[in-house]
Structure formats: structure tokens, C-alpha cells
């Protein structure tokens, strides 16, 4: 492979859209971190535009992987070779960066995960279920309430002398408890450190429950940028947190690695990538309520110049033109052969 061939990994989540361009020698060429702001389609196009500005004319993308909650949408727009859930993507990225890693703590904008690896293979995982207490959005909100930029949250928390106890069971109660502590006259760093501790406790009690947390521990996701949270984790677990270099885009990095894995298996395969010009393409999304049965599924359709690229959202498969059906479970193809007996 020549130097000018790249793999593209895209992670479209609720809060941020991350894009990674991977060289064929496994080094990261480019990372982009954009705010999704509820407009995943435009954000993906925006990202491609930014990427094109940075790439050389001769550069070629030979494999694309998408992940994150909008992975299907991203796969449709970009023409992806691999579509993977974010748990697998994070695990792949971490074990490529450090094959020894045994635990991944990942805290994103609205969800948090814990992934346990043994011998480089995922052996257990959990995601937050019924509540998003203690995720990035919550920290964002509290920083805004206290009138400090989110970047200063962590460094300020590190200055705490006596972290305040804050009820961390639920964001709403944590917030009222925090206000109460402010009104008692506690200092800002002490309150912030208390929030960090409450959030970490909450995470370990909910997501990390019954999980065998062993080192080396990777701390990934946007929240890993916050040294206050890192310290709270280290205090609680008694082990160092390793924050990998590309901590904020590990999902996208994992998707790029998965695309590379897939292309590596089948060198003759042409990537489905639709090209960098898709930044200018007009996509339309429309949705309608199917009245075929009482489920009233919300079907979403992605169109490009009057042709339908994909439809999803229906339970029965009546409308689905699932572009990614055959690439959704990439590994199955890797092993060749259909299932059956």
C-alpha cells in the first residue's frame, strides 16, 4: 500500500461527532472533534469538508468505519464498509493502543460504559441503563451554572482542600445538594471536587457494579479531559488511570481500525466510500408514521436527489432498505460462509 491511502473512522454520538483519519501504518494522521448539536447529517458533511481541506489531492480513502448512536445514518451518508456498536469500537481502539489493557472506563456526553478485556478480547461490559447521572452533559450543565468554562472545571477541582460530600445518586438531587452546599459557603474548588467524587461513586455503583476492575485501566471519552474526575477515580480505585493520547476520539479510532481489519481481510474489495464530494451533496431526511399496525413505527428515510438511500425505524422490515444489513455484522463476513446447517 502506498503512503497516500487512509482509513476513515467516524463516531457520531449525541454530543460530539469525531472523525479520525488513519494512515496505513496505523498512525493517526488527523482527528476532528465537532459538536453534533442535534444535526448529525450536517455535522458529518461539515466534518468531511474540514477533512478535505486538510488532505492532499492524491490522498485516497480505502476503508470507512462508523460507530456511535448515529452509526447507521453515518454509514448511509458516507458509504461505510463497517458499522459497529461503540462498545466494540472503543475496545478495539484501546487494545490496539495497548494490548495489555484490562479495563476501559468510558464517559461520554450522555452515556457511560465500562468494558472489561481479558487477553485483548472483551469479556464483559456494561452501559448506563436508566439514568445519565454523571456523564459529560451533567458536568457541562453544572459548569455553566457556576459560570466557569468546562475546561477549568478539572484544574479548579484539583485545588480542593476538603472536597464536599454531595449526594450523587441523581443529577437533579446532586444539583440541589450542590446549591445547598454553595449557600452554606463552601469554596468553589471544594464543591467541584465533591461533584467529581459524587460522579465517580455513581459510575462505580451503577455501571461498574459487579465488574472485576483490574489494571491497566484506560480512561476514555470526552470526560477523560477532566483531571478532577481522573483524580477521583484514582482515589476510589487505588490505581492509576491511563488517559490515551486520542482519548476523545477512541470510538472513531476503533471504527477506523475495524475498517482496516476488514480491508486487510479482503484486499481486492472496493471500499463503499462515496467520496469526499459528499460534503456538497444535498441529502434530505424525512420521516413518516407507518399505519400498517398499531405499533405506529416512525420510519426515517434518507434521500439523495429523489432517490432513497436508506430507510429504517420499522420493526417488521416492511420499509427497511437496510443498506448496511450485509455489513452490520462485519466479522461474520470476515470468516466467510453463511451460517446455517
Amino acid at each position, binding site marked *: 500500500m502506498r503512503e497516500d491511502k487512509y482509513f476513515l473512522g467516524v463516531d457520531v454520538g449525541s454530543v460530539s461527532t469525531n472523525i479520525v483519519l488513519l494512515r496505513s501504518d496505523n498512525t493517526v494522521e488527523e482527528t476532528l472533534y465537532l459538536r453534533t448539536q442535534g444535526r448529525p447529517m450536517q455535522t458529518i458533511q461539515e466534518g468531511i469538508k474540514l477533512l478535505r481541506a486538510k488532505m492532499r489531492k492524491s490522498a485516497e480513502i480505502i476503508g470507512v468505519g462508523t460507530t456511535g448512536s448515529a452509526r447507521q445514518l453515518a454509514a448511509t451518508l458516507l458509504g461505510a464498509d463497517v458499522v*459497529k456498536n461503540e462498545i466494540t469500537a472503543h475496545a478495539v481502539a484501546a487494545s490496539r493502543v495497548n494490548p495489555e489493557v484490562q479495563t476501559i472506563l468510558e464517559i461520554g456526553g450522555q452515556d457511560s460504559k465500562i468494558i472489561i478485556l481479558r487477553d485483548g478480547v*472483551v469479556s*464483559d461490559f456494561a*452501559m448506563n441503563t436508566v439514568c445519565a447521572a454523571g456523564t459529560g452533559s451533567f458536568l457541562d450543565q453544572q459548569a455553566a451554572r457556576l459560570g466557569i468554562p468546562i475546561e477549568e472545571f478539572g484544574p479548579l477541582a484539583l485545588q480542593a482542600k476538603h472536597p464536599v460530600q454531595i449526594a450523587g445518586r441523581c443529577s437533579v438531587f446532586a444539583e440541589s445538594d450542590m446549591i445547598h452546599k454553595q449557600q452554606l459557603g463552601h469554596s468553589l474548588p471544594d464543591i467541584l471536587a465533591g461533584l467529581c467524587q459524587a460522579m465517580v461513586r455513581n459510575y462505580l455503583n451503577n455501571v461498574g457494579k459487579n465488574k472485576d476492575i483490574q489494571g491497566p485501566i484506560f480512561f476514555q471519552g470526552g470526560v477523560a479531559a477532566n483531571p478532577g474526575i481522573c483524580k477521583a477515580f484514582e482515589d476510589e480505585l487505588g490505581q492509576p488511570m491511563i488517559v490515551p493520547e486520542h482519548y476523545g476520539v477512541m470510538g472513531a479510532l476503533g471504527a477506523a481500525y475495524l475498517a482496516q481489519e476488514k480491508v486487510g481481510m479482503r484486499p481486492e474489495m472496493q471500499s463503499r466510500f462515496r467520496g469526499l464530494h459528499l460534503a456538497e451533496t444535498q441529502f434530505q431526511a424525512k420521516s413518516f408514521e407507518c399505519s400498517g399496525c398499531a405499533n405506529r413505527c416512525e420510519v426515517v428515510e434518507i434521500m439523495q436527489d429523489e432517490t432513497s438511500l436508506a430507510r429504517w425505524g420499522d420493526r417488521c422490515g416492511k420499509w427497511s432498505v437496510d443498506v448496511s444489513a450485509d455489513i452490520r*455484522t462485519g*466479522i461474520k463476513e470476515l*470468516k466467510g460462509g453463511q*451460517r*446455517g446447517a
Partner: protein
Amino acid sequence: MKVTFPHMGNAWIVIQTLFESLNVEVVVPPSNSKQTLTMGTRLSPESACLPLKLNLGNYLEAAKEGADTIVITGGIGPCRFGYYGEVERQILRDAGYDYEVVTLEPPDGSLLGLAKRIRYLAGKDNSWAQILKALRFAYRKSVAMDRVEDLIHAARPRLPIPMETEKLYHDAKRRLAQTMSDKGVQDTVRWVQENIRERQEELGTPPEGFQKPLRIGIVGEIYTILDPYTSMGLEEELGRLGVEVDRSIYLSGWVGNHVFQGLAPGYRSIKSYPSHAKPYLPHFVGGHGQETVGAAVKFAQEGVNGIIQIFPLSCMPEIVAASVLPKIQEAYKVPIMTLIVDEHTGQAGIQTRLEAFVDLLERADLQRGIGQTRGDVLSVEGR
């Protein structure tokens, strides 16, 4: 009297058959749907478990079709299901619905009391012999239904077009619902078998042989296991991901144990679970908590690739079981995942977890057997 009853997966087929054989007018509520849940949630206490909310939705939808009597089974122990009949009766009364609720259980342990209630439902024209005959036929139908479900579990990962497999399942259910003879019931099961076999033959054998599907055992609370609307189409989705599903509880096993007091074993008896559970949970904790633990042990011993536990939010017996399962995961080195559902559960979250779980099992098991024999799908029954 127009009788209706709560939905639970395919149970309607069996219950409808029972009442129709006794010439009792029966209203089958529309299948569980978003609308059912929305209507039921409006009347239910927030903290009630999901099945209650769906039941109430079923009754409201059945009331539009003129139903005036509800039949529901009872139960004992810490699980709230035992109270459903009474709670639902009062909620409906307060909401202004004129429903009579008949709870099929021996009141205060009196079998005579139960007999009276059955008599009331069946009316004067049916002799006890006829009632017994109808019960036995409905039971046989439920065993056949379970066999069909199991065949579909096996077919999903092995047949190429999911929509066609679902259509086969749908048609089989329709046939079973319509037939009123033992021959018709047996023919339906055979028809499904034949159909699967034909489709497999059309596939032929690829040169590289077949990949043996992963196997996942599903354990947990009976309603969420049996009702695909509630479990977000868990079984179907896993089938699409190339997994063969097996579950801890089949309807006839529960009926045999719960209604016939263990006199009939059902398609797959649930009797052995408590003894399997003994090392981990040696006593009854209500609902099917102990069965969940026992079934997980049994599945692990059978060597399934993974186990999924599913239950409605706030289900106490299953919460007890969930706290025991990590020990089984450790002892047998089998991955176990817990899913909790309620009216706020999003499809996306479940989907992500299932995909990740299947990935986990796939990557751990890249060396699975190739070159399965063709008879596999059809020999799934009676494991």
C-alpha cells in the same frame, strides 16, 4: 358475557382456543403496541411493573370491542403478579369501566372456590368432562406453539431472509389459532418443519461449510421473555444477528407447573430449575427469581455461548437473581448480560447492547465448528 384476558406473547392463541371450545364468547385484545402501553400507562401507578401497564392497556382496547369480563391467573409470593387481578379491578372501577374480574386461583387454598369460578366462566351448558377436555386440548396446542417457536428460533440464524422467516412464523401462528383438531395442530408443526427443510435445501451447502450459529440462553421474568413487544423483539433481533436463541420458560411449561400444579410437564419443564439453583440461591424468592438462577446454571452446563437476563424495571425477584448471576458467570466462565425494560426503554440502547454482546461472543469464539449436518434445525426439539 364477553370474556377478555391480558396478552402475553402467543398465550392468546391458547386462551382463545380454550374459551371457544367451551362456546364462551371471547374478545382477543389487539396485540400489544405503543398504543396499548400509552393507554395502560395513563391509568397505572408510575412504580407498577411493565406487565401491569400493558394489561390495563389490553383491557381498555378490549372494552371497545364489548368485553365485560376479565380472566387472569393469580399467584403467591413476593412477586406483585398475585395482586394484579385485584389491583386491575380497582383501577378499572375507578376509571369508570364496568368490568368483572375473575382471578383463577384457589382462594385461600380452596379448590372448591377455584372450581366455582371455572364453573361461572364456563356457564351451565358445559359438563366438567367437557371443561377438562377443552383444557387438555388447549394445553396440547400450547405445547405445539412452543415447538413452533423453538423451530423458528433455530431457523432465524440459518435462513437467509429474515422477513420470510417472520412470515412463516406469522402464518404458523395463524394456522394454530384457527385449527380446532389435534390433527390440525400436529400438521401445523409438521408444516413449519417441512418449510424450513425446503428452504435449507434451496440454499445448498457452500464449499466452505456452515458456520455453527452462536447460542444464547434467555432467562428472566416470564412476561418479558414471552412477549416480543415487551422485550423489544429480543429474540428476533438476536436471530438476525445470527444467534440461535433458547429460553428458560416456555408457555406450556409454565402452564403445566402453575395451572396444572405440575401434573403436566409442558414442552420444556421448569421443574428442575430450583435444584440447579441450589448452590447459588437455595430458596424461593418469589416470581421466577430462583428459576432464572437455575436456568442460567442449566444453560451454562449445556455450554451456551452466552446468557441474557431480561426483566421489567423494579421486578424484585429478578433483582435478587441479577445479583446472584455474576457468581454463575464467574463459575462457568459464561458471559451474562442483564437487560431491564420499561415504558421508557429505547430501542437504540437495547440494539447497541445486543450487538456488542454478540460481538463479544463472536470474538471469543472464532474457532467454532464448521460443517454442521443438515438435520440440525429439525432436531432442536426435546433437548
